[in-house]
């Protein structure tokens, strides 16, 4: 083989190594029997995986993250589905501006969003930590909800709504009877994408978390600052497998990648 023909396979291997390598290291480290987070792992045990479930703050912050991911995504869909419908079905003045504004949280760095929310919303209006996190996560997920739902609405003919109306349905009824069932896959995909985005969100949550109220990733960072044992690695592995599992199931049953 010439150097030329080796270039591509080697590049590919390196890319894969950099993408998957850290993940494999973390997974390996979580089975370590040693006292500190280290690679290669010292021996094999399940003690750190078991420990994850005994840390009180992990349980509380996991609950909070779950609440934000489910609640925030649901709220984003409640706002995002009608917004997507309006954007896709009506020629609205300024529709492009609305699209851009709605997409802003994807483009603007989380640090800035977090700081802005803290400085101009949370502090002046004395918003509670949980509410602030909920609002922030809703806003962060909204762009994904609008984008994914819009994509499936754009693929759906609009004349079926008129057909439903002429068969006796109201306009709103037509939406629920013939639009919603046909964009169900898109909505589910938006939900999963939103859930994963919210669950893995760090910078915004970092700014808005406060005493006793933290999301899981923020709690993990805080934990690592004090304790440097492999339990964080164990927790990371568990979360990674959870995410992979969700996306795998979604792909299998919804054809998730069609929408995203």
């Amino acid at each position, binding site marked *: 083989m010439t150097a030329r023909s080796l270039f591509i396979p080697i590049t590919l291997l390196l890319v894969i190594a950099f993408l998957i390598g850290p993940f494999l290291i973390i997974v390996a480290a979580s089975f370590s029997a040693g006292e500190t987070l280290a690679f290669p792992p010292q021996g094999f045990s399940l003690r750190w995986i078991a420990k994850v479930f005994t840390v009180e703050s992990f349980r509380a912050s996991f609950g909070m993250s779950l609440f934000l991911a489910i609640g925030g995504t649901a709220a984003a869909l409640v706002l995002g589905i009608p917004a997507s419908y309006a954007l896709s079905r009506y020629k609205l003045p300024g529709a492009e501006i609305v699209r851009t504004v709605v997409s802003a949280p994807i483009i603007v760095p989380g640090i800035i969003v977090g700081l802005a929310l803290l400085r101009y919303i949370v502090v002046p209006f004395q918003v509670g930590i949980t509410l602030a996190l909920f609002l922030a996560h809703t806003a962060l997920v909204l762009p994904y909800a609008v984008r994914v739902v819009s994509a499936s609405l754009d693929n759906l003919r609009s004349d079926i709504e*008129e057909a439903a109306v002429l*068969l*006796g*349905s*109201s306009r709103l009824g037509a939406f629920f009877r*013939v639009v919603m069932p046909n964009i169900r896959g898109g909505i589910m995909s938006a939900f999963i994408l939103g859930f994963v985005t919210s669950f893995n969100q760090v910078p915004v949550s970092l700014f808005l978390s406060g005493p006793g109220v933290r999301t899981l990733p923020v709690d993990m960072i805080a934990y690592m600052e004090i304790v440097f044992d492999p339990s964080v690695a164990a927790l990371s592995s568990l979360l990674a497998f959870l995410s992979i599992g969700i996306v795998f199931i979604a792909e299998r049953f919804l054809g998730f990648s069609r929408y995203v």
Partner: protein
Amino acid sequence: MSDASYLSLEKLTLAYGDSVAVANLDLNIRKGELIALLGPSGCGKTTTMRAIAGLLPVKSGHVRLDGADITRVPANKRAVGLMFQSYALFPHLSVYENVGFGLKLKGMRGTELDTKVKSGLKSVGLSDFANRKPAELSGGQQQRVALARSMVMEPKVLLLDEPLSNLDARLRLEMRTELQRVQKETGVTMIFVTHDQAEALALADRIVVMKSGKIEQIGSPEDIYNRPTSSFVADFVGFENIFPLENGKMKTSAGLIDLSGHLSSGAPSAAGLAWRPRMVTLGTGPFQGTVRGTSFAGDSREYLLDSAFGPIKAEVEASRPTHALGDALVFDLPAEKAAPLSRFV
């Protein structure tokens, strides 16, 4: 309500924003009639249909149906059916559920619903396809589902948007027969929109030719085909030699030319005259022409002549002696055969 105005449009004006699509349209349709709205795209035919369905708000004027003013009645309470050009079947529902959709909304349940849906499917020959999804059907089958879905609702008026345009030649004939049968059996008033004159001539009891949001001519297929009253309609139905009249003479780029022969009675007030290519006589007559083009069309042969009138299209039986390109010919535009046009635009 008289019998002649089961569905009537009175001074109907429709607009998209500020641009008027249909202006002051008056039209009376009898119960059980099969009407074609015929015209080129942008003539307002689809707009008119959507207004009858209630999908487009009426700017001014009235729509009356079966004695009631339905101008402001919402689309879902009009008892007007519409078969969409794209069929607009509900992709997530089976054929059976598509047909039963409207009946269920009416509150129909159980055996009554089942009987109605099944007889609807049977009437379009799709009993065996009840459990299929629309995507698993051919275009022709999808259209029949759409027809059944509208017809089980027993609409007072069935609107059809370009009902034959998506079908191939064989299916067109099948669907045309199907629509006529449904119309005959149920007596439903049908209005269909088309840009295809052949489709309108073959199917309709009466044809409404539209242009730029106005009615150009209303008449039986024979009227429209043989006696167009305006240059627009004449052109649309295949009169290819059309000239304006001035002081009883034909006005051409080469000046006024005397008519050949006499106009039929009542025609002298005409604003123009029109001849189909078949009405042009070759080989005899007072006019001079040169063959510019010729094409064989099976039973006949078409010629394009250069003349003082400008280009003239003629069509003669294929068995007649042929003329070559560049041949000088005499020809005739017999005045008594011409369709007199009362409007020239």
